């Protein structure tokens, strides 16, 4: 000690303790100062108008102090204290700044002085700060500032201090809590910037010291405990410059100030952008966390600085005068961007991990306290790895993993076929399709893109923009996802894991699941995954009045995602909600409790309306066309017969044959007579079974299919299957014990029947899917329908004719392709073909259409392609008509070039001469040579506009009902499809989405709402 004290000869240390409502921590702080192993030469406290017992404590401790007004900032308090301290003579005086919530360890000062002893260049030194309550919590050892203004310590969240960063480190700055600074340097730098009354003043001081040629170090042998009372909002920020007295606002404003005042001038534009951008992102995050005050702080902080440019100009002037070396000297202390990203990613991953796999506190018991001696003597316990395979969840997952790997053997790649159109390459394409107001499908459509496209786009974005990969993965993993979803539901119904897993596997191999996967029913797969999750929460709606709004919006959000994929699914759930409303009305009649009724009604209306609102404007179109409430995404392919639907098999291409009779209906019929809660599930299931059976015979034109096909009832049957699985599990749970305790009767027979039929079906279905069933309509990398050369010219329209055979009869279909096969979402927005084209094609096929080629070319159709196998009779008829010139005849089919002017945009002058004009996929910018009219080969839509010389041209319907514009003069013009309406809808949808999301997410906590133990 003496030796150390000797070494510190020539150093005089004056501790300045700044106190502001610090009574909570002050006793320990004063005690720590008094007990320093290297005694403090002089101590002076500054009280800035404390309202608590701080002053009394200082007096009792005999600490000399001065009092300043309450709004005095930290820097001003230090400056006032220094004025009261006489300048030393012949000694280096060191100022040791101590906060009233910062308690240094007894060796802290000595360690600091030891560190600076042989480092004459050091002007500032700081201790390692640890948490006040969790004293292993490593708060910081030196501090810096990130480009976005964040306070950068380089530590992980709640990092445990075990000496891993010990040593003396060169840093940009150290916290003012425990900062030791040479008085002469402090004076030379002009003390703390008066514009930084609190927060970030430490970084600013360190930065200025650095560019003035001094060194700043963090000494980890010196330890101080810090409660961070102001930053964690344990006390009110009363400093004069604190606008609205909001700590976060002050912190952010000061961070921006420090960056902009100290950085090189050429970095300023980039920094402003970065500050503003990151403020926006953080504000968005705070909004989502329902902390609008913090969000406002973020934006206001930057704004405050921008409205006072003089402050920055003066600050930069002062710093320029103090600067001795290049400001680039601090660049090594500014964290690189990748470090920030890495830290953000780590934090996000940790948050997700904590959410999914929460760390359970170790159960501590005096009875099983570890005995170290015993540990040494006892052989280590080891678990046989084979025991893992005795866990039903593992067995189930492995079984389905093997099964789906074999089942999907034709589906590794870009998937299409069945009801699934081809996926666009990337997420950007999907986003664009979603945002577009005009879609180049058939003769063009302005229909609202279905919301599921946005969901897929979002999911694709999360998968690095690979939409194709997303779809392939979804179809591959669907059985596993189905099992997981159902398992999580069944765990709420039974404790028997084997039963839950077995039932979940059966669900993943149910007829509706197999059929959906094989035939590319994206909507039904989504319903299959989400329905069990929703079913988990539906029973809680019986007491809807007790539910939190967060739960209601969370459930609505989930149903909203479901609705985006399947309006029938929404219809089914809305029916359940409506039944709840009817029940409430009956309760009101019997009890007369209107308040309860109103509470329930509001909540049920929110439950019904929110999913619908989330899918605006697409869902709104379903009100105009109610038949869409029965449709699912993708192509309209025929489902099975009503008899198939009755045995819970939706039928259609790719479905399991009828003789694989699933036990679904049997279970429901058995369960509906059960005395357990299985009955309720069975009743719901049977209602949906009847609906599915009846609706399976419906057929109407939809989704680009003018004739219509027998309705696919996959969604209804999903509900039926979920109900059956739940009923079955409830019946079979503990059934063995019950049956063993009773005499043989019909329950034994029924139970045996249910179990046997389930096992038989699941085994047979497993065998089927890995053998015959794998050859499904949905396949990977199938050959394009259009010949390659018809896909080369952008926007070229080709009329595709294709024959199909069913029931021994041929049917012929046609559609207008635009340089590609059908893409995801195309069927959903495909417009109905105009009667004019219908007639032209019909007459072309029967050989009577002498004007067919003229009509088709007027619609901008350039080619006619008849896909193999061709009907030779039709080929002869087409050949027999004029206007169709054979272009090629290959294995793919026959292509005719349609004679005439078949361009998208045609100008016809006053003399009747037509001229084709260049146009893009949607808009065009070109010119006319004189008066005439412009014909656009797209479906008529009120949003089509041509603006010439600042005026909109008059829009009329042309000969075939296509848009036509009268041009009265020569000149350049712009053709646009006005997407204002679409953008307005999207904005509204985004508002609804964010509102629901914010309401559904857990609320963030203000710092003052977080316990100090959690913070430090």
């Amino acid at each position, binding site marked *: 000690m003496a030796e150390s004290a000797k070494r510190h000869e020539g150093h005089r240390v004056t501790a300045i303790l700044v106190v502001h409502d610090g009574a909570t921590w002050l006793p320990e702080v004063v005690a720590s100062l008094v007990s320093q192993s290297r005694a403090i030469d002089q101590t002076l406290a500054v009280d800035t108008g404390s309202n608590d017992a701080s002053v009394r404590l200082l007096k009792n401790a005999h600490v000399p102090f001065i009092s300043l007004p309450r709004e005095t900032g930290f820097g001003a308090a230090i400056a006032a204290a220094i004025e009261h301290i006489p300048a030393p003579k012949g000694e280096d005086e060191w100022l040791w700044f101590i906060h009233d919530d910062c308690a240094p360890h007894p060796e802290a000062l000595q360690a600091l002085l030891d560190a600076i002893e042989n480092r004459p260049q050091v002007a500032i030194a700081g201790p390692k700060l640890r948490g006040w309550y969790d004293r292993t919590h490593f708060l910081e050892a030196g501090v810096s500032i990130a480009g976005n203004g964040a306070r950068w310590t380089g530590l992980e969240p709640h990092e445990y201090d075990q000496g891993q960063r010990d040593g003396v480190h060169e840093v940009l700055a150290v916290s003012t809590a425990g900062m030791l600074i040479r008085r002469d340097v402090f004076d030379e730098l002009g003390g703390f910037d008066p514009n930084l009354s609190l927060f970030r003043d430490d970084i600013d001081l360190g930065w200025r010291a650095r560019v003035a040629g001094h060194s700043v170090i963090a000494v980890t042998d010196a330890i101080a405990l810090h409660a961070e009372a102001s930053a964690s909002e344990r006390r009110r920020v009363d400093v004069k410059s604190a606008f609205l007295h909001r700590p976060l606002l002050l912190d952010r404003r000061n961070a921006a100030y420090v960056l902009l005042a100290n950085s090189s001038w050429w970095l300023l534009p980039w920094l402003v952008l970065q500050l503003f951008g990151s403020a926006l992102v953080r504000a968005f995050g705070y909004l989502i966390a329902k902390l609008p005050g913090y969000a406002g702080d973020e934006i206001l902080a930057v704004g405050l600085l921008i409205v006072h440019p003089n402050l920055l100009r003066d600050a930069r002037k002062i710093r320029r005068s103090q600067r001795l070396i290049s400001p680039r000297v601090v660049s090594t202390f500014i964290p690189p961007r990748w470090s920030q990203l890495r830290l953000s990613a780590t934090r996000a991953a940790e948050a997700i991990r904590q959410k999914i796999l929460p760390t359970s506190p170790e159960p501590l018991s005096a009875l099983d306290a570890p005995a170290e001696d015993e540990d040494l003597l006892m052989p280590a316990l080891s678990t046989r790895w084979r025991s893992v395979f005795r866990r039903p969840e593992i067995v189930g997952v492995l079984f389905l993993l093997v099964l789906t790997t074999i089942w999907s053997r034709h589906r590794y790649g870009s998937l*299409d076929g069945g009801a699934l*159109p081809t996926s666009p390459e990337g997420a950007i394409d999907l986003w664009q399709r979603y945002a577009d107001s005009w879609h180049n*499908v*058939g003769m063009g459509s302005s229909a609202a893109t279905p919301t599921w496209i946005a969901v897929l786009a979002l999911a694709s974005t999360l998968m690095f923009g690979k939409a194709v990969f997303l779809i392939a993965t979804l179809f591959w993993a669907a059985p596993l996802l189905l099992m997981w979803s159902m398992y999580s539901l069944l765990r709420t119904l039974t404790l028997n894991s084997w039963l839950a897993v077995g039932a979940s596997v059966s669900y993943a191999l149910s007829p509706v699941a197999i059929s959906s996967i094989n035939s590319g029913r994206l909507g039904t797969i989504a319903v299959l995954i989400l329905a069990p999750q929703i079913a988990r929460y539906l029973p809680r709606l019986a007491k809807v009045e007790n539910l939190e709004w967060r739960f209601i919006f969370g459930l609505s959000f989930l149903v909203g995602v479901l609705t985006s994929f399947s309006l029938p699914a929404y219809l089914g759930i809305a029916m359940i909600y409506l039944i709840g409303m009817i029940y409430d009305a009956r309760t009101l009649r019997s009890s007369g409790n209107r308040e309860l009724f109103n509470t329930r009604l509001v909540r049920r209306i929110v439950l019904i309306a929110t999913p619908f609102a989330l899918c605006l404007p697409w869902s709104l179109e379903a009100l105009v066309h109610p038949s869409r409430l029965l449709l699912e995404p993708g192509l*309209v392919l025929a489902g099975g017969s*009503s*008899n198939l639907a*009755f045995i819970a098999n939706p039928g259609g291409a790719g479905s399991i044959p009828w003789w694989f009779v699933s036990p679904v209906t049997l279970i429901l*019929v058995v369960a509906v*007579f059960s005395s357990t809660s299985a009955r309720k599930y069975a009743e719901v299931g*049977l209602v949906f*079974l*009847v609906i599915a059976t009846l609706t399976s*015979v419906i*057929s109407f034109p939809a*989704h*680009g*299919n*003018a*004739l219509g096909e027998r309705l696919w009832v996959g969604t209804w049957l999903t509900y039926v299957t979920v109900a059956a699985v739940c009923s079955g599990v409830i019946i079979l749970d503990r059934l063995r014990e019950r049956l063993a305790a009773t005499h043989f009767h019909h329950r034994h027979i029924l139970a045996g029947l249910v179990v046997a039929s389930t096992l038989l079906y699941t085994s047979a279905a497993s065998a089927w899917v890995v053998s015959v069933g794998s050859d499904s309509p949905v*396949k990977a990398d*199938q050959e394009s*329908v*259009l010949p390659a050369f018809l896909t080369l010219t952008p926007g070229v329209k080709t009329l595709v*004719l*294709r*024959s199909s055979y069913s029931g021994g*009869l*041929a*049917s*012929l*279909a*046609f*559609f207008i392709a635009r340089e590609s096969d*059908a893409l995801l979402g*195309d*069927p959903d927005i495909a417009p*109905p*073909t105009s009667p004019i084209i*219908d007639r032209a094609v*019909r007459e072309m*096929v*029967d*050989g009577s259409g*002498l004007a067919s080629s003229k009509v088709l070319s007027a619609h901008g159709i350039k080619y006619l392609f008849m*896909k193999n196998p061709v009907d*030779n*009779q*039709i080929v*002869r*008829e087409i*050949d*027999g008509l004029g*206007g*169709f*010139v*054979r272009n090629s*005849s290959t294995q793919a089919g*026959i292509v*005719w070039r349609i004679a005439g002017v078949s361009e998208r945009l045609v100008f016809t002058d006053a003399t009747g001469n037509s001229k084709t004009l260049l146009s893009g996929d949607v808009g065009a910018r070109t010119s006319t040579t004189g008066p005439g009219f412009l014909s656009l080969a797209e479906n008529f839509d009120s949003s089509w506009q041509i603006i010439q010389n600042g005026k909109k041209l008059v829009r009329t319907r042309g000969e075939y009902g296509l848009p036509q514009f009268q041009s009265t003069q020569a000149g350049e013009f712009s053709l646009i499809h006005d997407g204002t309406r679409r953008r307005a809808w999207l904005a509204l949808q985004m508002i609804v989405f964010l509102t629901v999301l914010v309401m559904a997410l857990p609320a963030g906590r203000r710092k003052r709402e977080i316990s100090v133990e959690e913070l430090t």
Partner: protein
Amino acid sequence: MNIRRVGIVTTGLVTAIVLSNLLTATVGVKKYSESYPAVACPPTASGMSAQVSTESKKTPYRKIAGKTEAFIPVKSSRFTIASDPILLDSADVTSVVWQSRIGIWAGATLCTSPQGEQWFVGGAADVTSKGRIFLVNSGLSEAIVDVAIWSENGTQSDKVLTVRANSFIQVRFDSLAAGQSRLSVRVTPRSGRISAFMVDERGKGLKSLGGDIVNSVESPATNFVISGIPHQILKGKAGSHVLRILVPGNADANIKVDLISKDGVFTPVGLDGRDVQRGTVTDIALNPTIAASAFSLRIHSDQPVVAGVFSSLTIFGHPEFLWNSATPQLVPMTLAVNGLTPTLIFTGETIGLKIQTRLIGGKVVNSTVTGSDIAIWKAPSNSQTIKISGLQPGIYGGGLVTSTNGIGFFPLIPGSALTRAAIPNSNIWVINR
């Protein structure tokens, strides 16, 4: 167990099943359009005359290669084809075309709708030949046609011919296979609405050896019948016949030929299991010793073959020949025969059919034809149409027409088959993989 609950559940489920099945019957009806494609009648070569028999004077037609594409009534139920071929909208009535070179030869054929493939067995490209093939494109788009030729020397080089829209071309045999005396031709349109007609005309110097129109068959077959071969016995000497046969496939064929006539059914010597070389046109002489005036041949082969029978005849003192082609099984049909008095020859194990003849005055005469192996029915002289119905299965038929100019044969097949096409509907499925 609650009986009421059982009743409700059972009633609900049964009602759903019954109702849905009843409703099923009302959905899923697909619409089809049915029509008889218009038929093309052959052009008339220079120096010849041709008439087509139609059902009525109102039957619409248009000239192929004409200026107008509009159909107009023929105005005569025995319409003269001046030179250009015509397109006849004769619906379900098959029109017979009679062509003749006055005092030299005559031939008959049917106006037919375009077909995917036409096989002709007959003709020669040697020094005697004046034969040619007509390719008629009744469509309004250009047609591309593959013409494949076989002869006694095997396969000749294929020709690819282009026929302009709404026009026809004629190709002489000597330009297809110069010097070859036994021909068989296949016409396959790649594109276009093509009907092909073959005329085999022969002469030696200034002396005419006769001529005929060779009718086509749709495809090679392993079992078929050549009906209505005229057997002429003049001054105790029977006319000669030659069976021409081609095996277009990759394997030699083994054939068996049954000769069917009023005198019975027998297999001529050497024709019970005779090997026929693939790829070459083979002529087999037939000199049956029968008293019947007409006979038929029933051919069985282990490989698909096409065949025709060449008969040498003398008509009103001048030499004439006739090509009989194979006929498919007879189906109900109506023939327009105005101006002709055809003799119909039916072949089959058991023959039974009804014939309704509408005479020029509108009178209808009903006849029944029965028999076994072969039956011959001659139409009244003033017949307008002949409707064949009430057919027993397994009957084949052909028609013979004789005039002072010569003799002609036409197979009893509909010139235009009823086509049933689904009405096309818009469906985006067509552009999904």
